[in-house]
């Protein structure tokens, strides 16, 4: 194929890919967008297969089939709460492929590589290897194989900095040398990068996972792009750069949602959950006084019965789902309740915090699984002004994203994070597993507020009971109240 045609073909493939992304503007067209992206990739693979003599077609086909079949089986079986773990694992798979390619290219006949090619090879290998090990840790944390809390080693910051310095030094060396020295330098670089990814991902956990996973998404793209420079394939560079751009946009969006900058977060500069947690719980009023100590109010009603009564009287209800809802698999009951309240003539809306979930947009997927009406989902900016005129803010499995301490107390891990203003609602119903602080370790003063009804326990059970009680006529309430 001559070079002009080749260039035109590459441009066409990229246009198809861009068109695919363009169609991601709306849920109705996104599915065709995904098909277009798949088409673009298939074309790219096709032209490489046609244009280059493949020496061992049997091996190639076998590897393709094995990887593809495994990918299909896993993707067809996992449920929506496991998506972040799956995406993290895929980031790792992408990084792994990139660093293998860069390694083989580097150690194979280096005389053919121009210095830029060699530099890109080193970069691709380092970024790919770090992405791989980082993603595996992230995936293990998200799949709850590992504890989700950050693991901070002694002198963690210094370990990362010295690793980075040594990698830079060795990288420069690897670009300058040739032959066996290059092989050894590459192997050492690979090992150090794997450790870097590991150490780096270990200290990020819980609510910071969306940032980590977006960042790894970006680095996978970068590694692919550098691989493209080494093998001199324009499509590889272009697709990799697009993925990197997407990953960095999402990383930025997540950082903004938590009011932190990327450097701060990745350097774990202000991250001491245990310490700040205990500090704040000393300065704030004890959170469990009202609910845990005296679960029955003066009328002898259980918190659940009071919650039912509050929801029954409300004209406008805003539901605030958090990751706890997903952990309890309660999204189906929550969406059903929203529909039923809507049928009863109440105004029901969902308020979605950008970090309510374990990756960007995760909560929307979880609610979509329960077939929620997408028109009643609102994000923080759209809905925060509506809380003062809301009768009940119904919180399910969320803590940090509604914690007023984020605005009122300085020096906590969530200080300055924009929150959903549930405290402005006339009444607040909290359906959480327990009244412990959220992931950040900062006690939530909302729990102690007199207008808050704390219904502790499994959200799936709680909402099942709410569903049974909500539509009944007022007369039947005492029965319902007695039952609990």
């Amino acid at each position, binding site marked *: 194929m001559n070079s002009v045609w080749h260039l035109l073909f590459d441009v066409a493939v990229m246009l198809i890919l861009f068109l695919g992304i363009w169609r991601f503007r709306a849920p109705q067209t996104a599915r065709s967008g995904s098909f277009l992206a798949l088409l673009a990739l298939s074309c790219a693979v096709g032209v*490489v297969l046609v244009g280059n003599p*493949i020496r061992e077609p049997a091996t190639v086909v076998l590897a393709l089939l094995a990887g593809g079949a495994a990918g299909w089986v896993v993707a067809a079986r996992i449920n929506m709460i496991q998506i972040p773990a799956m995406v993290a694992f895929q980031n790792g798979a992408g990084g792994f492929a990139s660093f293998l*390619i860069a390694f*083989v290219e580097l*150690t194979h006949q280096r005389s053919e590589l121009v210095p830029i090619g060699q530099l890109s090879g080193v970069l691709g290998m380092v970024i790919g290897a770090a992405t791989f090990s980082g993603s595996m840790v992230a995936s293990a944390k998200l799949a709850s194989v590992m504890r989700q809390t950050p693991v901070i080693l002694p002198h963690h910051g210094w370990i990362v900095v010295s690793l980075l310095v040594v990698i830079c030094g060795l990288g420069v060396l690897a670009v300058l040398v040739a032959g066996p020295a290059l092989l050894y330098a590459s192997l050492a670089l690979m090992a150090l990068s794997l450790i870097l990814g590991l150490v780096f991902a270990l200290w990020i956990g819980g609510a910071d996972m969306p940032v980590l996973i977006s960042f790894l998404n970006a680095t996978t793209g970068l590694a692919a792009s550098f691989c493209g420079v080494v093998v001199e394939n324009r499509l590889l560079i272009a697709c990799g750069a*697009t*993925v990197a*751009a*997407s990953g960095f946009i999402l990383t930025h969006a997540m950082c903004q949602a938590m009011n932190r900058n990327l450097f701060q977060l990745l350097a774990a500069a202000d991250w001491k959950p245990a310490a700040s947690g205990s500090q704040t719980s000393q300065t704030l009023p004890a959170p469990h006084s009202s609910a845990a100590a005296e679960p029955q109010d003066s009328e002898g009603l259980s918190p659940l019965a009071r919650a039912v009564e509050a929801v029954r009287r409300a004209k406008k209800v805003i539901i605030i789902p958090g990751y706890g809802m997903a952990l309890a698999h309660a999204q189906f009951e929550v969406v059903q309740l929203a529909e039923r309240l809507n049928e009863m003539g109440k105004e029901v809306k969902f308020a979605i915090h950008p970090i309510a979930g374990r990756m960007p947009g995760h909560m929307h997927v979880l609610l979509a699984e329960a077939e929620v009406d997408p028109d009643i989902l609102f994000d923080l900016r759209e809905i925060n002004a509506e809380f003062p005129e809301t009768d009940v803010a119904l919180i399910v499995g969320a803590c940090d994203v509604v914690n007023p301490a984020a605005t009122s107390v300085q020096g906590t891990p969530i200080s300055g994070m924009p929150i959903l203003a549930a405290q402005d609602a006339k009444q607040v119903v909290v359906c959480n597993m327990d009244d412990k602080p959220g992931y950040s370790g900062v006690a939530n003063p909302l729990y102690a507020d007199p207008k808050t009804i704390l219904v502790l326990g499994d959200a799936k059970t709680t909402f099942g009971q709410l569903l049974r009680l909500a539509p009944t006529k007022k007369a039947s309430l005492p029965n319902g109240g007695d039952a609990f």
Partner: protein
Amino acid sequence: MADLLLMASVLAVSSVVGYVLISRVPPRLHTPLMSMTNAVSAVTILGALLLFALDTTVCQKALGASAIAFAAFNLVGGFTITDRMLKMFHRHHE
């Protein structure tokens, strides 16, 4: 040198166009978007295939084959899961 310039401009143009397009994706589609771009990053499979056009040792072939397998996992898995999610988003509009 011309090649290098071309590659650099490909990198720059794709980053900018990608940035502009992806900024318009609404937050509710961020998970499918990430899953889709993840599948797109399986484009490294091109690099792995190109390795098989070179003269390589058995060891390098083995590494190349695992790169192909992992990239294929990423490609098929990524698009399958993206489609599953988007079908759910679609359902309510039908």
